């Protein structure tokens, strides 16, 4: 079942790539249909998943036994929500209208390929497999940005690829280091998690940890290794940005939990405070820089850095001490995981809306807009909901995860939490300013003919924002799933 979630889009990518070029409608329908398969499968998996500390529904085949490599997939409380998020974001992003420059086959092919790779990252229970999918996601994203991006897309795409490949090679070296410390050598995640091979101190453990941190900090991204993100987002097509922010960034924070926290708990504790400081810097820095932006997409990109900083703060707090404060650390970890999901939904929606705005106006400059709400009501409404969700309005998903992270982390790093609250205030200010500049005030002459969101776009917004609302009002079903696994990690 889990294998099918990877295999269907992967095979679909090749099928779509070989359809006749002119059959654009068929290509689109087939690709969309296939991209929904993982979502349907996720529902089944979710219903069957019984919760608990260990991954379930494991499917495992030996791959390169001579190297201790296996094909092994499964879900637990950390991966399942992210799998669900990815399975939702991919079809809706693919459905979102975009000028494909007459290259439908390639576009849908790459998106299906990317979907398979992203699901693979979250489902993999073998470090080798994890790395394989991790790298494939880079390749897919590079082409999506480079081919369908705008502005200086080729350059941004290269920057993205080289920057994140640096991270992935750091990841590879760290994985090899971890692999060489296991005995007998294995890439199997579960056995490494159950028997963390490295003691906390020692140069070797620190170097391996550093490798992982570099990889995940770049991917998440945290300041100061975030500089690939703004150009990639600004020049990527809207759906590409949504996937980049909604799914690909989560791979970094997921890696923090799955690998550094679970496989190297001792080392993690030693450096948790440093990581938390880095996270708080990202929150404040992301919010401050975001405040200074006049480009809508760049603004959202920087808020992403702040939100991902918050997620990492929660993870760092969860691993900040080895024993005690069990409830606080558990809550922090729940909040961090939930934060990934809510950020994925909300920022995905915001980036898609910016894509719509760009498609209509050809610019992201907020100063050129104004009063759009009067002309494009649905667009205005969707943006208002997404923006308020993003700034943490109670009743919406981000609020729940923010509160959990703050409450949990407060027990471990009270000062850092207080500092990062400043960042949250800044986020509120800048989103309100954005809404005012773009949607409120007098409508300018040149936007008289601004089209509202069309049917597909509206449906996509609903499918992203309604879950945001559901999670915000009734988060227990999701938190319980996460919590059962998080409890085991913090030793509760």
């Amino acid at each position, binding site marked *: 079942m889990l294998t099918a979630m990877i295999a269907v889009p992967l095979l679909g990518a090749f099928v779509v790539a070989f359809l006749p070029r002119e059959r654009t409608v068929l290509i689109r329908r087939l690709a969309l249909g296939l991209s929904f398969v993982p979502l349907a499968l996720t529902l089944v998996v979710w219903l069957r998943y019984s919760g608990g500390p260990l991954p379930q529904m494991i499917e495992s085949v030996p791959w390169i*036994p*001579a*190297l201790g490599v296996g094909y092994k997939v499964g879900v637990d409380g950390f991966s399942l929500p992210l799998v669900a998020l990815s399975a939702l974001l991919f079809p809706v992003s693919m459905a979102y209208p975009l000028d494909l420059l007459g290259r439908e086959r390639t576009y849908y092919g790459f998106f299906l390929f990317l979907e398979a790779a992203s699901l693979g990252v979250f489902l993999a229970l073998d470090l080798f497999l994890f790395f394989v999918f991790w790298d494939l996601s880079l*390749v897919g994203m590079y082409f999506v940005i480079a081919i369908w991006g705008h502005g200086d897309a080729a350059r941004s795409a290269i920057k993205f690829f080289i920057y994140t*490949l640096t991270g992935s*090679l750091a990841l590879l*070296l760290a994985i090899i280091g971890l692999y060489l410390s296991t005995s007998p050598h294995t890439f199997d995640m579960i056995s490494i998690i159950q028997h963390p091979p490295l003691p906390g101190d020692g140069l070797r453990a620190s170097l391996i940890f550093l490798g992982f941190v570099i990889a995940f900090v770049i991917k998440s991204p945290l300041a100061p290794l975030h500089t690939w993100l703004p150009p990639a987002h600004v020049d990527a097509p809207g759906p590409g940005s949504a996937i980049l922010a909604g799914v690909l960034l989560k791979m970094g924070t997921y890696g923090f939990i799955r690998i550094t926290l679970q496989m190297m708990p001792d080392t993690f504790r030693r450096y948790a405070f440093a990581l938390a400081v880095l996270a708080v810097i990202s929150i404040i820095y992301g919010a401050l820089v975001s405040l200074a932006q006049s480009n809508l997409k760049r603004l959202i990109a920087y808020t992403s850095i702040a939100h991902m900083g918050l997620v990492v703060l929660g993870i760092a707090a969860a691993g900040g001490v080895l024993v005690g404060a069990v409830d606080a650390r558990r809550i922090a970890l729940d909040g961090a995981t939930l934060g990934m999901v809510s950020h994925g939904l909300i920022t995905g929606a915001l980036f898609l809306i910016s894509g719509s705005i760009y498609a209509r106006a050809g610019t992201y400059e907020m100063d050129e807009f104004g009063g759009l709400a009067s002309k494009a009501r649905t667009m205005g409404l969707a943006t208002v909901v997404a923006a308020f969700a993003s700034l943490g309005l109670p009743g919406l998903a981000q609020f729940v995860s923010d509160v959990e992270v703050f409450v949990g982390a407060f027990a471990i790093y009270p000062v850092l939490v207080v500092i990062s609250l400043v960042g949250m205030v800044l986020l509120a200010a800048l989103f309100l300013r954005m809404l005012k500049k773009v949607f409120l005030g007098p409508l300018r002459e040149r936007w008289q003919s601004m089209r509202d969101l069309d049917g597909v776009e509206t449906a996509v917004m609903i499918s992203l924002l309604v879950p945001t609302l559901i999670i915000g009002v009734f988060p227990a079903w999701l938190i319980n799933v996460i919590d059962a696994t998080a409890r085991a990690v913090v030793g509760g």
Partner: protein
Amino acid sequence: MSSGGMSLRSVLPEIVLLIGALGILLFALFASRRAQRFAAHLSLLVLAASAASTWFVVGASEPTTFFGAYAVDGAAVWGKLIILATTALAVLLSYEWFAADPRRGELYTLLLLSALGAVLLAGATDLMEMVLGILLSSATGYVLASYHRRSARAAEAAMKYYLLGALATGFMVFGVVLLFGMGGSTLFGALRVSLGGADAWALAVAVGLVAIGLSFKIGAFPAYAWVPDVADGAPAPMAAFLTAAPKVGALIVLARLAAALPAADVGWRPLIAVLAAVTMTLGNLAALRQDDVRRLLGWSSISQAGYALMAVVALGRSDLAVPSLIYFVGAYVLGNLAAFGVVVELRGLADRHLYNGLSRTRPWLALTLVVVFLSFVGVPPLAGFVGKLGLFAATIEAGYTWLAVLAAANSVLSLAYYLRVLGPAYLGQPGPEVAATMGRWARMGTYVPAAALLVLGIAAQPLWHALAGAGLFPL
């Protein structure tokens, strides 16, 4: 002392190659001009027969034969097979490329003899044997590089190749003499014992001199300068061959020689590590600015040689060293042939700007470039990734983490110039005229290795399993 006597059976692949090469020469002498092309068919047959006859070598009870002068171990067999496959692919690429050349028949004789030189290198466990292999592989290589007699660029490339080769081989012979003087034998097995008491400095000088000679064949620092010129100036199928086959043999013999040095560290490990570091960095930095795809491939081939040297550094300290060396070299060779195959199939098109929009006009060739370059970078699930993973693991296990980190940094660097070709191919608008293509043989010589990269990356188990047990005398 393992000797194994003189079993002709165990050198059957070499004998087949030699007789086949001479047979093709006779054929080319007497065949009509129209029939010359069948020399290509014949050479494929010879290569297949030679590969098949390795069957008689596999599972030899002793690691060496001919009184310790020639290896029949796993590394020798795998080296042979890789070289034979390389040669066969080069034949495929040559068939149409040399179609108008009236002397095309003899080409295959030279190609087979050059392959024989590389094969001898892969099996050499004796200093004289090593020199012989290098000379045979080089002497034929110079001619192959300048096979287009009227091309000034080919002449220049061949001249550079020749002068540098003569110099490097000269250094190597000095080193060989010194080693012989200190060890009292030319056999690696005997040297392993007798060099134990040798003066460390004299030994370092001798090893350094031999390393210079081998670096010429490997295409590594310090004798690397011929590679981009040959890649650019030699006939493209020969460039593919010359930047691949000798490398395989020379890397294996270098590994053997390193293993023959006394166990007490005489500093060869740091020496090779520095050579590896310089080679990969230099190759990548120089490749960054190339606008000519063939030169770019030449420089990238230098950097790949640098990665491969990492396995030699890890030799004896990590069980992964030998299998990852062979896997990596195999992946490199396939990639190199496929990449040059694209150039051949596009009739020698080399300026990267002419690759604009290739993904629309020739999607399969563009895809081949993607596969090859990503395999060179080490992106999974391609064969290059498995090889590089093994290399990194072996190097880290051997205590040379800095080298692995440098190699990783270099891999990032290399992505930049590969994208300089892939970018235009996928993003650029195709020009008014669609590039002409070569033909069926060239296509086969391109797509077969490219597909193999994918297959060997995903289904890595059988090969890796087989390699894990491969011995490398005198390790």
